[in-house]
Each structure stands twice: as C-alpha cells, then as structure tokens.
C-alpha cells in the first residue's frame, strides 16, 4: 500500500509551502489541535497541489464540540468561502469534530457532479474512517485526498470539465460519518483466500493475479501465502482500507502489456508495465520455499507515488530488482521517462 509521503525533505516542504502560499491564508485550520506542525504542512502542501493541478479549493477544518456537523460544515464553507480560490468555483471542505467524533466532507455546487454523495460516503467510510478510528487523522485525510485526486483526474478527461464555471457555494451536498467505528471493515480478517493453483506451482504472474483477486474481494489478510514472510510481518502493522484495495484492483484493471523479467539466478522476478502506464507500478517477486511470493517490503521501500498517483523509484533505497529496469532511463526524481531502446 502507498505511504503518504511527499518527495524530498522537510526543507523542500517548507520551500513548496512558501512558494505556493501566496499570502491567502491557510487551507488547513486545525482548531482542535490534532495535527503536528509537520502533518499540517503536509496536508497544506497536498491541498495546494490539488488547487494547482485540478483547480480544487479543498479546505480542512478541525473543531471540538461544535453544533450539528452538517450545518457546521456549511457554515464553515460559507465563512471561509471555500471554492473562492478556484477559478471555476470548485470547493470542498472537510470538517472533523474531535469531540463528537464526526466528519463531514461538504461539496460545493461545482463539484456535485464529480463527487456525488455516494462517492463522498464511500471515501469517508471505506478510506478515511478506518484511519480515524486508529486516531490517524492526518493519514486518513491524505489517503482520502488520493481518491479525490484519482476521481478528479478521471473527470478532467471529460472535455466539459474545464468549461464549467460555477459560483462558489454549497447546497448541502456531501456526506457525514461517525468516526467511532468503521462499519463493515475489519483490519485483520481471517484469510479466506482460495488459491486454485498450489503455491509451488504458481508462476509470478499467477501470484500477482492472486493478489489482485484478493484486492477485488477486499481480502486484506496478511497471512496469504502469496506474500513473503517479511511482507506478512510488515502487513500485520499496516492499515489497508477497503478503498485502498478497490483502488489497487481498479488501477491494475487498466494496466496491460505486462512484461515478466527474471534475474540471472532466476530466483527473483519483476512484472512491469509500459512506461506510459504511469500508475501501474511494477511488482517485485522472490522465489522462496513456498514458491513465488510478492516482496512487498522491498516494493514499499523502493517505489513511491507522486501527487498524480504516478510511480517513481526512491533513489534513497537500494533494492535488488534493478536488473529489470536497466533498459529504462529515469529522471532526477526517479520517474521512468523512456526506454534506452528508443535512443
């Protein structure tokens, strides 16, 4: 699963923040004091990039013990003029009441078609709330922003997306959720995976197919035999939400022309996709006593995702899977840009 970390150091964060601040006041108002300064800045930067890339003015407000969350969100939306910083009036406001343990994502008129109530409820219940239940408020917000970005990217493929200009404001669209429990979500379900192919007979492609099948079924069990023992240990500490599993399944459903590459010793393998498919990160696999297994530990260290969900290598991490990418040219940030064969 993806971490919510921006490229570069905290210093870079500060520079980015200063560069895009523009003196218009913060997008994140932590009245309840729930975020560390670093978390607040991280949210601020992500949301400024959302404004920059997709013209969406996304505010975050935390309070303690306010009024009815639905009305309070609308009041904040009006008071902060959410959407006013977007040239097309696209406004979102997330209100989290730390005392009532409730969250609401208020959607402005301009985005009602892109983010209907059902989608907002899905984002809250299937992505945000599982993090909130574990008191990881900032992570929950960042994780949900990822889904918002994905949705906005798809919307921007529609020609009319940029033509519509709305007045900022909200008519009460959006959804609310209690953050005390995440209905229908278990963080450590018993494994229910049925592998039609025995572990030893599985090819790397079979393993990836089994993993994607588990994601489609929202099976986040770390005990599946398609993971290396290290990956299982790591996954036991992970929070994998239903929305994240859906996102993986959805993303890879659109990936094609995968290519399998083995190491010289044939005990490790990589499944990669064409460079143009920027969101289809490669899979790292290793052959152990139980046959081919996903090396998610190394994937987690070596691969990062940019703000448009495009993957890149993290140069600060060494990994033994470089053999599969020797024919690719990477840019300074680790994004693959072209194949050497094209030179």
């Amino acid at each position, binding site marked *: 699963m993806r971490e919510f970390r921006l490229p570069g150091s905290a210093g870079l964060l500060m520079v980015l923040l200063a560069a895009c601040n523009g003196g218009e006041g913060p997008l994140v108002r932590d009245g309840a004091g729930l975020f560390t300064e670093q978390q607040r800045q991280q949210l601020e930067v992500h949301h400024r990039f959302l404004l920059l890339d997709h013209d969406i003015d996304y505010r975050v407000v935390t309070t303690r013990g306010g009024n009815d969350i639905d009305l309070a969100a*609308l009041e904040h939306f*009006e008071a902060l003029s959410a959407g006013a910083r977007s040239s097309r009036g696209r406004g979102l406001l997330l209100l989290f009441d730390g005392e009532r343990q409730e969250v609401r994502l208020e959607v402005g008129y301009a985005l009602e078609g892109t983010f209907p109530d059902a989608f907002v409820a*899905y984002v809250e219940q299937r992505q945000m709330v599982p993090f909130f239940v574990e008191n990881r408020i900032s992570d929950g917000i960042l994780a949900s922003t990822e889904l918002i970005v994905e949705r906005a990217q798809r919307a921007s493929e529609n020609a009319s997306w940029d033509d519509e200009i709305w007045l900022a404001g909200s008519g*009460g669209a959006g959804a609310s959720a209690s953050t005390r429990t995440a*209905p229908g979500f278990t963080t450590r379900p018993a494994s229910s995976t049925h592998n039609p192919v025995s572990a030893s007979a599985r090819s790397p492609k079979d393993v990836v197919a089994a993993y994607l099948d588990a994601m489609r079924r929202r099976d986040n069990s770390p005990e599946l035999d398609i993971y290396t023992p290290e990956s299982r240990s790591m996954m036991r500490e992970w929070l994998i939400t239903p929305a994240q599993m859906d996102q993986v399944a959805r993303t890879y459903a659109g990936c094609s022309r995968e290519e399998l590459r083995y190491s010289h010793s044939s005990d490790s393998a990589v499944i990669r996709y064409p460079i143009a498919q920027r969101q289809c990160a490669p899979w790292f696999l290793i052959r152990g006593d139980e046959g081919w297994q996903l090396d998610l530990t190394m994937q987690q260290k070596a691969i990062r995702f940019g703000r448009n969900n495009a993957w890149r290598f993290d140069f600060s991490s060494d990994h033994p899977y470089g053999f599969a990418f020797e024919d690719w040219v990477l840019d300074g940030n680790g994004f693959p840009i072209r194949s050497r064969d094209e030179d």
Partner: protein
Amino acid sequence: MAEEQVRGTDAQSRIERMEQSGLISRQQADRLRAGLTAGAGEPDPSRYGATRRSMPLIAATAVVVLVFVLYVFFAMPPGGGPEVVQDVSSSLNQPETVGAMNKFLSLSIAIFVLVVVPAIILAASYNSLVNKEEAVLTNWGQVESQFQRRADLIPALVESVTRYLGHERETLTEITARRQPDLDRLAEAVDRLAAGQQQVAEARGEDESLIEDQEALTRLFAGSAAVGKDIEGLLAVVEDYPDLASSDQFLELQAQLEGTENRINVARLRFNQAVGEFNSAMRRIPGNLAAGLGGFRRKAYFKADDGSGEADESLFE
C-alpha cells in the same frame, strides 16, 4: 432536468416491479406512485401572483416622470429667438413681485420633491420587493426539487430492503421465525413511509398558494419531518442485518437519502431566510406602500409550528 426525469421513470418502474413481485402491496404501490407525481417541478411564479402584477407602479412612475419633463419643457419661460437679446425683465424678481423664472423654478422643485421623488422611491421599493419575492420563489424551487429527489429515491430504498429481507426469508427458512418480527416491522415501516410520502405529495400539490399559507406550509413541514423519521425507521430495520447495512450498494443509497435530507434542510433554511427578508421589506416604509399597490402578499415560513410567527434558526446570521 433530464437526470430528474430518468430518476422519476426509474422510480416508477421500481414501484411496478416491487408490486408485481409481491414485495409491496397495491395500496403501498399506489401511495408511492402518488408521492412521485403530485407537486412535481419548479414552482410557477404566476401561482404566487408574481406575474399578475404587470408593472402598474412602474408604468405610473414613468408617466409621472414624463409629464414632469414635458411640463419643464413647455412651461419654461420663453427666451425668444436666437436673434433677440433675451428680455429677462419679466423673469427677474422686482421689488414687491416675484419673477416668472422664480415661479417656474419653485413650482418645478415642488412638483419634483412632492411627486417625482416619491414615485421613484416607490418604484425602487417595488423593484426591490419583486427581487426579494423572486429569491423566495427560487429558494422554494430548491426545496421542491429536493422533495422530488427524495420521492424518487424512496422506492429504491424500499426495494433494496424488502428484496433483501425477502431473499433472506426464502433462503434461510430455518430462521424465518426469528426474522418474522423484522419482516412485520419492515411492512409497518414501508406502510408509514408510503402513507407519509403520499401526504407530503398531496400537501405540495393541493394548495394553489402554498408558500403564502402558513398553516399549509407548517402542515407540509410536519409531514416532511415525519417522512424523514419514517426513512430513519426503515434504516433502523436494516441495522439488524450487517451484511446489507455495510454493503456498498446500501451505503450508496443511504448516502443519497441522507444527502437529500440535508439538502432539504439547507434549502429550507435559505428559503426561510429569503422569506424573512421579503416579509421585513414588506413591513417597512415605503415597502409597505409598494406592497399594497403591487398586491404583494406575506410569505409563510417553512418550519415547525412553534407559535413564534418569526423565522427560525438562520445559518447566515
């Protein structure tokens, strides 16, 4: 609008499907159908007298101003042709007398102050009332639109719950006895919801000047609140079925219904705010004069009957 039509057609076919498969009774189906049709669509301004006031005050003001301009033009003392040096002796004030120019100016100023200025103020006040009334109608349109949205969603909710429980009854025969009370609760909840929805639809459709009738609007508010409670009652039945309650399909439906309830609430608050502004303007001077001349009528608040007669909570104060 096209989306609303599709939703409406979809709701009709749902009701038909449920009736045919025996998930709901004929009476329930009829009530749900009634909830879909009555009072649908945007409010017609003529229904509230907004267009019958065909600008008499504006026309009267225009006539007054025109007459005044003509008067100034023709009543101004003649100065003679361009070849004649103007003889101002009769225009100037002489000892013990008042010149023609002075008389003309005095009379003009008096007419301007006493007739033209009030007419202009009255016309401006009239226009302001028209704008405020339009705001009331627009906001009521939002309320109606959300009512319609809710009416279209209710059959989907009923179908989702009744079909799920019906399926359970068929497949899990050994627990039917245990589930029977739930099925009874469900039938009652559907009954209440369908009846409430029909009442709301009738209340929306029956009154030709609904938003000017406080009693009717209070009744509609009570009916609407009851439907909201009935929806909650139906959702409460579902809470005993975690598989259904936590499914994505049900989450989606629930989100749409809750979203619609919230939109109704927001639209209601904005409508009440617009009504407050309109009614206040009508009571102030010179709004009360313009309202009397223009035939404006006080608008009703869409709220519970708390006996105060004033607007309830406002979002934007």
